[in-house]
């Protein structure tokens, strides 16, 4: 199965994903929801994310899910359906959607875990529909993709400029 990050995601796709994340965040009464690729890249987020350092959050969540998956296999399980971290003030619910992406739900004291689990199940189905649509879209042939998918010619000078500023 192609990882989510290997798919081309356009603005309209992202809007659908964010709508799902927002619905989950509100219905589950959670603080924030994040969609993360299994390789650790943040795809989209909703809710109170202003104070979150989302890049390492995404990376560590992917590491945690990867470790849980490997543990499951060691024990002869296909997978562990979710990973839950329970702190004094914050809690994290991590689950895998369709083998492609990780759904992270950040809960505070006001969130009910049972409600979160119920809503995660519902929204996971909607997300899987979106991923199915994305994966059915033909991959653009190199150099012949739709114009909006072109990054353009990346020259050695472009890369040099990146590092010279650092």
């Amino acid at each position, binding site marked *: 199965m192609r*990882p*989510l*990050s*290997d798919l*081309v*995601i*356009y*603005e309209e796709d*992202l*809007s659908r994903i964010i709508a799902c994340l927002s619905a989950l965040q509100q219905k589950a009464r959670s603080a924030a929801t994040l969609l993360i*690729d*299994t*390789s*650790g*890249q943040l*795809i989209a987020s909703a809710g109170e994310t202003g104070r979150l*350092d989302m*890049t*390492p959050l995404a*990376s*560590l969540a992917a*590491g945690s899910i*990867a*470790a849980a998956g*490997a543990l499951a296999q060691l024990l002869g399980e296909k997978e562990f359906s979710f990973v839950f971290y329970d702190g004094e003030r914050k809690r994290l619910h991590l689950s895998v959607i369709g083998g492609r992406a990780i759904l992270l739900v950040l809960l505070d004291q006001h969130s009910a875990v049972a409600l979160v689990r119920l809503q995660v199940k519902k929204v996971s189905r909607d997300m899987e529909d979106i991923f199915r649509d994305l994966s059915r879209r033909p991959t*653009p042939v*190199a*150099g012949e*993709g739709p114009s*909006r*998918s*072109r*990054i*353009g*010619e*990346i020259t*050695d000078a*472009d*890369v*040099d*400029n*990146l*590092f010279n*500023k*650092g």
Partner: protein
Amino acid sequence: MSFINYAAREINCKLVYYGAGLCGKTTNLQHIYKKVDPGAKGKLISLATETERTLFFDFLPLELGTIRGFKTRFHLYTVPGQIFYEASRKLILKGADGVVFVADSQLERMEANIQSLADMRQHLTEQGIEPTKIPLVIQYNKRDLRNAVPIDELQKALNPRNLPWFEAIAPQGVGVFETLKAISKIVLQELQKKT
């Protein structure tokens, strides 16, 4: 794999530093973290043991600027080099866009380098990545040590395909940015071919 967010105009690439235990992977990231402008880097996260040996991975996000209007982010990871962390190494290669193989130049680490390279190829294959197709550069680290093997011998043993290679003394920063720049360039060129 590299994630291009056309809505936010962002390119995200995952680069993995691979190599045998104590070859200098974490030292590479620490030097990059020290030298990069504060606005261009996130936190350096190290999941390490009490004796500072990498347990799971180190992670350093870099946002160096824009290319063709796309904010370009590199996510740098290291793997734990010690032999018994094999399962973790495999997980970290998932979705890698490019790999830096850090070789320890010391004569007594040649066997470990060769084993690590074979281990990397196997794990890439298991992650569905063709080892000969993924962007890869070799860094010969610890060039300042007296027992360092001559470059031509290292090349014969570790780099028969003559991939881009760099000499390095990671604690002093020698060769560190040259290596990062080279792998970044190849990854971005590959990305361009795909789009």
